[in-house]
């Protein structure tokens, strides 16, 4: 099962890449090997020539000191002592007089070799047929002979040659090393590419398989993630974080629809009960009952409208009405609107603004959102309390603060109050639909800002940092 993907390995990118690398690598090995080979050959040949020159000099010395008689007598012995060497005495007409020339094919061939010698400073190179030689048993004689012919006396030339055995065997060694090396490399490269491709294909296959499972509905599945932190682990990590986000969004949607269903079922059930009762009620009660039912329906409609507005705001599609808003004037209007409600509860409503602030936004939405904040503050602050609205100009944009001396919100619930229909247990019985702060958060988001709940010690302190008027997102 796990290895099923291997049939695809031959087509995999990794495998092809491996093969390409093998070709490139072989080419570079060939180039380096060729260079080394050439250098080695040049070096070995120079060494051989050095040996030949040394031997020739010593032999000429010997010839000049002892005379031809002794030299010729010794030449046979020298050949015995120096198996790879070959000595031949020739006259100026290139006629062989003595030495190992018998090992050569015939007299003509040595003559031919000798005649061409002056053009190459005496250096010659020829083949020696081992079969005719007297040392046929020595294998390295099956080779080229490197030789030099120099004049040693009037009408006398000396040829000294050596088998190029070292050079040839070196050549062989390098060649076979290269051949074997390349063959081994090809095998290793194919095997390595195959294994590597198999491993990568295996890991990708896991990701594929799990993606499919997730697509088929199991959103709790996650990609396997090793400790290594390689690119696959990072990919898995990113995919997993994305899946976490999707899951939490889906849970969010689910909890919103649950909340909507739950919060609207109660008034609907109430409405139904009332209508049921009205069916049998005396006429004078019917009118009041219908009035109540209409009021109940209106509240539900209002809740739906609020939900739709919030959804629309969250989708960010309502920026068509953005314009420059004079925030100071807007705050004055809010204070003016809420002054009677506050004074009715004997609450001191104070407005403080330190400078003119203009903002690019939706005037109606900003007004409605701030109204919601002030409305909450006035509603939850007990009689004789204090509500303060501040508009401050700061370097990174205007800050709006609504603070009160009410009961505040426990720290652990300060984020949750922005959720749809979320209401503090203590306020569950008071008027309201639990959408006011959700709308505030949505309006804040539409204006690229956020609202934070803090402690006013005692009371609630709501801080809304608005973007600078320059930023028009």
């Amino acid at each position, binding site marked *: 099962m796990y290895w099923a993907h291997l049939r695809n390995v031959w087509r995999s990118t990794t495998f092809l890449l491996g093969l390409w690398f093998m070709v490139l690598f072989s080419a570079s090995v060939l180039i380096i090997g060729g260079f080394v080979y050439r250098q080695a050959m040049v070096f070995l040949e120079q060494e051989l020539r050095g040996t030949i020159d040394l031997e020739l000099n010593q032999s000429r010395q010997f010839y000049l000191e002892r005379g031809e008689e002794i030299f010729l007598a010794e030449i046979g012995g020298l050949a015995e002592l120096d198996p790879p060497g070959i000595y031949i005495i020739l006259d100026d007409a290139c006629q062989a007089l003595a030495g190992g020339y018998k090992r050569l094919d015939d007299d003509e061939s040595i003559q031919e070799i000798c005649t061409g010698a002056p053009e190459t400073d005496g250096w010659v190179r020829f083949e020696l047929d081992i079969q005719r030689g007297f040392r046929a048993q020595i294998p390295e004689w099956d080779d080229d002979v490197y030789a030099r012919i120099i004049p040693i006396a009037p009408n006398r030339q000396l040829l000294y040659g050596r088998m190029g055995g070292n050079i040839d065997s070196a050549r062989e060694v390098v060649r076979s090393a290269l051949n074997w090396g390349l063959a081994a490399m090809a095998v290793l490269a194919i095997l390595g590419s195959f294994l590597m491709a198999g491993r990568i294909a295996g890991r990708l296959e896991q990701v594929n398989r799990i993606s499919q499972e997730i697509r088929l509905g199991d959103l709790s599945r996650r990609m396997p993630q090793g400790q290594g932190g390689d690119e696959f682990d990072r990919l898995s990590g990113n995919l997993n974080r994305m899946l976490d986000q999707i899951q939490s969004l889906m849970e969010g949607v689910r909890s919103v629809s649950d909340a909507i269903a739950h919060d609207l079922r109660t008034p609907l059930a109430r409405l139904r009960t009332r209508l049921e009762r009205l069916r049998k009620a005396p006429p004078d009660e019917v009118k009041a009952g219908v*009035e109540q039912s*209409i*009021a109940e329906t*209106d509240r539900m*409609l*209002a809740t*739906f*409208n*609020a939900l*739709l*507005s919030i*959804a*629309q705001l969250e989708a960010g*599609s*309502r920026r*068509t*009405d953005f314009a420059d808003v004079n925030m100071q004037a807007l705050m004055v*209007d809010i204070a*003016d*609107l*809420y002054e*009677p*409600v506050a004074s*009715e509860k004997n609450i001191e409503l104070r407005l403080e603004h330190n400078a003119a602030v203009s903002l690019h936004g939706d*005037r*109606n939405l900003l*007004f*409605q959102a701030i*109204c919601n904040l002030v*409305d909450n503050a006035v*509603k939850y602050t007990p009689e004789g309390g204090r509500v303060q609205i501040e508009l401050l100009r700061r370097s990174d944009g205007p800050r709006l603060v609504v603070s009160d001396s009410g009961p505040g919100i426990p720290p652990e619930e300060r984020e949750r109050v922005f959720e749809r229909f979320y209401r503090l247990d203590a306020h569950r019985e008071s*008027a309201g*639909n639990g959408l006011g702060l959700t709308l505030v958060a949505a309006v804040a988001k539409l204006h690229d800002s956020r609202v934070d709940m803090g402690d006013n010690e005692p009371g609630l302190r709501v801080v809304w940092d608005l973007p600078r008027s320059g930023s028009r997102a």
Partner: protein
Amino acid sequence: MHILVVEDDSTMARHIVHGLTEAGHDVDHVSDGRDMLRAAADDSVDMFVVDRMLPGMDGLSAIQAVRAAGNETPVLILSALGDVDDRVHGLKAGGDDYLVKPFAFSELIARIEALARRAASREVNTSLQVDGLHMNLLARQVFREDIEIDLKPREFQLLEYLMRNAGHVVTRAMLLEAVWHYHFDPQTNVIDVHVSRLRQKIDKGFEQPLIHTVRGIGYVLGTS
């Protein structure tokens, strides 16, 4: 009043036609913008109630065409929430008022009647008179039975709007829009407190109250 409802959704149209007929109006219905232009040509229509989204020619283009022809008949635009917000576009195109679906029927009637009155009283008034209540718009003074009532600027504006619409229901959203110039439906009692303050000053000490609460809808000014 002869009202033409331009609405493509037949259920919605039937609902509106029925409700407006019950309220005593003479109502016709067409379902697209071209028919609206044809009806506008014969000048018998007193008000248009136009859905913004229509097949063929959309509502705003139809309104623009009507205005371009020099027809000043009041237009109330209906729009579903979820459309791109275009209250301003609607009003710029020549609409006189704007209502978002779904709406309470009472709100629709209140707005239609307010529009009709606004159209009828285009002339500039310097004073208003309703059942012994007198408002001098130039001197910013209010008298009831010759007793001067001291009103704050906002209270004055509230009363002015109520008096201009005397005998007709005005909703809280209409008051917020007329006096504070913000457009949304206040779900709280802020407006009520303003009205009750005004009521304190207008009705206290008089046998006959002038400001009446209409449950679930809004307020009406008048003796009856």
